[in-house]
């Protein structure tokens, strides 16, 4: 093929156009490592290049398919598989993975799909894309569709995610202009059967094209641009999207407990999927973990702490309270629901012991508060367990007198704030606590600050902070509307900015009481806890006492027990304080019923992380969406075949006038797509049938038309050989579609 100079030019053009296709496709891959947890992007790009190259050099399929498969295996091997490449062990390993993942898919538990399998799907997708783009760019010479898709993709990602698409959009424009210029040139040459030889191609087309593209790009890049002429539509769109789908921000959000809180914000929808049932004396929060580092966008951990493994039978001591705290021994039973997909334990404050579980070991991390059950060295999800705990109660006087003498490690770890925190926030914190004399009052002041001052509880239309915007500042000064994450994070930040050690706790609220049961002669309540009960709150450190939970979220009551010690002293000041405290207590009590209504609420960010087993990875979504797009594309390409099948089935099932009419009209539509056969509106059906039959040297259209005419122009047409007609129809459709 390379001997003929024209051919050589053509294939050179094709090569450049296809290369442009690959570069555009690369723009699709680039953002993935930022917006998803896809690592090792380079490997995927290399594999994509490999597939594109193989598609281009036009080897026979029995060579390319094995080559691509081996490439795929090689990539998987390098990324995941420790076995010797292509050994028996290796195949068994891959086979087991595939089998497992198919089971998982059948069970709709997408989040359990293993990275190996996900990567394999992704590689297959790259493979398919290489074909698709080859078809679009080289065979059909239709570049504009993919160019538009790419631009839309980049702009959407740029708008709605952290991805910065400025460079990408410029690259995309350059590449697309070149690709479209070249492909329209080759198309034009083919259409007009013009052959330009050798150098003249460059003079006639390529050099002008390059000059125009470069000139346009440079001018476009350098020219002064007007500021946006209308207000940024993004918040509105985000709001609208969030309101409807509960997804927003850069990741899919759903209600429930998740592990990744790096990017808070965004709306969500309620999800009342049960997570567990608890049998307990009273309603209280179920804690899972805490986080200590606020990044300005969300929460991360400074370290994973020092988890210690211990046998289940032993007592647990997280060391959150000093002995000075009054406690009451209680027990509770937890029955996890099948829908729960996290392995960490939920537990009340003051946990002492876990029993009646399948676990043999507990990995306890006092820093983060996580308790992970293990069996034979592997963590797993418990079906149920019993908890023994000493529910703490805090004395107002102790709290008020606890002072500020924090241990250095506490002070260091839990007063952290990002440097980017606006000064505004600190000023506000100072203002709020101005009249508070001790730490407890400060905490209460901040907690109460949210109950007034126009803050609103809502799960809808909650923005994600923009780049450079602080999550708490946005909430405190800008929106004042939010849910637990907004309130709790803001409270922690406010407290930390006045030097009070505080941390961010996650778990579930008490849930809805659904039943009462008798356990060992005692009446206990059964609480149903759903994903909607996922919640976050605040823990404040008090020296000599420990961590005390506070609840800033509007509409939620503080479930921490506080009590007033009967000191016997009767001086005026103290009783005044007592009165205040009493008032507060009452307030708390009042809030409780209100909470029941809004109790369902709580939210957790969809995790991007691989650590949690709860979440649907974003890039799986992308894979699914692309697969759906591809199948839609294929369905569109073969729509007439599909519709033929549909009409045929319908007609065979119910032969008769109506379906015959539909089938005939469909036939007209199909014939209309044929360039040399389409019916002009002044052509009667008979004339048209005549021309069709002339074209195919057949009788079918005439016969079909004969019957159709009788259907639509005759008064009553009953007797038609319906079964024979379906055959005629099928024959003709086949001829037309072939």
């Amino acid at each position, binding site marked *: 093929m390379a001997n003929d100079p024209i051919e050589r030019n053509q294939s050179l053009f094709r090569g450049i156009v296809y290369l442009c296709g690959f570069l555009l496709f690369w723009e699709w891959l680039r953002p993935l490592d930022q917006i998803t947890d896809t690592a090792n992007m380079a490997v995927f790009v290399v594999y994509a290049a490999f597939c594109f190259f193989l598609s281009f050099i036009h080897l026979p399929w029995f060579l390319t398919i094995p080559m691509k498969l081996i490439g795929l295996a090689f990539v998987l091997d390098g990324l995941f598989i420790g076995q010797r490449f292509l050994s028996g062990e290796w195949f068994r390993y891959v086979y087991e993975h595939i089998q497992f993942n198919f089971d998982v898919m059948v069970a709709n538990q997408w989040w359990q799909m293993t990275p190996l399998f996900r990567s394999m799907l992704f590689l297959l997708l790259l493979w398919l894309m290489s074909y698709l783009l080859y078809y679009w760019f080289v065979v059909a010479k239709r570049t504009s569709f993919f160019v538009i898709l790419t631009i839309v993709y980049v702009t959407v990602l740029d708008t709605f995610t952290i991805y910065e698409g400025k460079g990408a959009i410029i690259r995309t424009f350059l590449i697309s202009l070149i690709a479209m210029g070249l492909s329209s040139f080759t198309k034009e040459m083919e259409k007009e059967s013009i052959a330009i030889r050798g150098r003249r191609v460059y003079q006639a087309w390529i050099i002008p094209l390059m000059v125009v593209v470069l000139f346009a790009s440079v001018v476009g890049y350098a020219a002064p641009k007007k500021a946006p002429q209308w207000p940024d539509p993004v918040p509105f769109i985000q709001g609208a999207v969030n309101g409807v789908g509960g997804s927003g921000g850069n990741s899919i959000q759903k209600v429930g407990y998740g592990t990744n809180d790096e990017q808070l914000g965004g709306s969500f929808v309620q999800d009342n999927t049960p997570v567990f049932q608890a049998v307990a004396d009273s309603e209280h929060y179920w804690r899972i973990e805490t986080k200590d580092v606020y990044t300005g966008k969300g929460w991360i951990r400074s370290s994973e702490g020092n988890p210690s493994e211990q046998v289940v039978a032993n007592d647990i001591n997280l060391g959150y309270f000093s002995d000075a705290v009054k406690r009451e021994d209680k027990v509770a039973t937890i029955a996890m629901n099948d829908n729960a997909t996290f392995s960490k334990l939920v537990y009340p404050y003051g946990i002492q012991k876990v029993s009646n579980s399948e676990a043999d070991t507990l990995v306890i991390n006092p820093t983060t508060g996580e308790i992970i059950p293990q069996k034979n060295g592997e963590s797993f999800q418990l079906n149920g367990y019993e908890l023994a705990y000493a529910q703490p109660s805090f004395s107002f006087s102790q709290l008020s007198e606890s002072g500020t003498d924090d241990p250095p490690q506490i002070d260091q770890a839990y007063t952290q704030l990002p440097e980017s925190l606006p000064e505004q926030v600190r000023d506000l914190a100072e203002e709020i606590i101005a009249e508070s004399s001790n730490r407890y009052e400060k905490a209460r002041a901040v907690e109460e600050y949210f109950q007034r001052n126009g803050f609103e509880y809502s799960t809808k239309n909650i923005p994600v902070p923009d780049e450079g915007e602080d999550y708490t500042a946005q909430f405190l000064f800008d929106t004042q509307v939010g849910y637990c994450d907004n309130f709790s994070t803001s409270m922690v930040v406010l407290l930390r900015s006045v030097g009070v050690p505080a941390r961010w706790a996650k778990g579930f609220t008490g849930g809805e009481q659904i039943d009462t049961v008798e356990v060992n002669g005692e009446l206990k309540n059964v609480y149903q806890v759903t994903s909607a009960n996922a919640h976050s709150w605040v823990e404040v450190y008090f020296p000599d006492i420990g961590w005390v939970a506070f609840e800033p979220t509007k509409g939620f009551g503080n479930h921490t027990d506080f009590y007033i010690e009967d000191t016997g002293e009767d001086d005026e000041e103290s009783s005044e304080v007592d009165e205040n405290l009493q008032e507060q207590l009452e307030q708390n009590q009042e809030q409780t019923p209100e909470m029941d209504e809004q109790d369902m609420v709580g939210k957790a960010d969809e995790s991007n992380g691989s650590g949690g087993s709860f979440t649907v990875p974003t890039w799986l979504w992308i894979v699914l969406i692309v697969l759906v797009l591809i199948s839609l594309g294929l369905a569109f390409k073969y729509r007439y075949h599909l519709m033929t099948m549909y009409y045929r089935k319908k007609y065979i099932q119910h032969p008769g006038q109506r379906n015959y009419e539909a089938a005939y009209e469909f036939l007209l539509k199909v014939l209309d797509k044929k360039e040399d056969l389409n019916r002009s*509106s*002044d052509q*009667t059906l*008979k004339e048209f049938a005549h021309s069709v039959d002339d074209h195919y040297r057949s009788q079918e259209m005439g016969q079909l038309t004969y019957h159709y005419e009788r259907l*639509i*122009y*005759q*008064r009553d047409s009953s007797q038609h050989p319906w079964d024979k007609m379906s055959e005629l129809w099928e024959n003709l459709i086949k001829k037309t579609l072939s």
Partner: protein
Amino acid sequence: MSQQTYLAHGKVHELFANIQSVMIGKEEVTTLSIVALLAKGHVLLEDVPGVGKTMLVRTLSKSVDCEFRRIQFTPDLLPSDVTGVSIYNPKTLEFEFRPGPLLGNIVLADEINRTSPKTQSSLLEGMEESHVTVDGNTIELKRPFFVMATQNPIEYEGTYPLPEAQLDRFLLKLNMGYPSAAEEMQMLDLISNDHPINRVQAVMTKEELIELQNQAAEVYVDPNIQRYIVNIVSETRRHPSAYLGVSPRGSIALMKAAKAYAFIQDRDFVLPDDVKYLAPFVLSHRLILNSEAKFEGMTSSDLVNDILQKVSIPVRKEK
């Protein structure tokens, strides 16, 4: 536009074949004449003398076993010459009505544009009203009643062109046209001995003809075909080249003709094809072109064909 029509109806085919034994070629004109006959309409034949107009009418009338009358129109022809006249009979001392040629079944009105408008209207009145008034008496015309008028488009001197309003009394306006060379040779061959018209036998009685006319009127016209007809006709009123469009009488004529045309193909319903085929014959003499179009050399048939290209065919059942 010449079209071979498959005359599926047995009786009609017989009639057609009988006429064709005399007429060489001219299938289309023959077919359309039969259409007009069955649609109870009349035909205006426009062509030069000697192309067989009279022969066609005579053969037709002989084949149907009807009374054939011929009126040769001249400038001095009086209305009474057409309709008949009451003459005083000295024996009975009474006025006696002598029926004119109009009181036949099949009337050939030859060179209709040669007579005065007064005489023309007496003919046209009869065609439209199917009765004539003579001396205050109304005389019913015979049934079937079929007029075939001819006019010579070449000569203008001493002619009285038919007013447009009267032209639309004719269902169809046809052109005979010259035969092809082969047809003409065949004709010479045929004529050399005895004229074939002398051998023509009737293949149909008057009663049979009336029955066929009634059957043709029964043919079903679907609403979507009616809409198609109306669309075509109303388009003639909107067309930029038309000075005067087709009247509702034209729509009725088109539908009647289409019914008869479907009938001779032994079909009991009308197809758009029928309408489309007949439209130029039915409509072109019912409209007047404006001077601009005339100047550009456009004819009425061109206009109708132009309209037929614009109006879309109904291909779906009307809901």
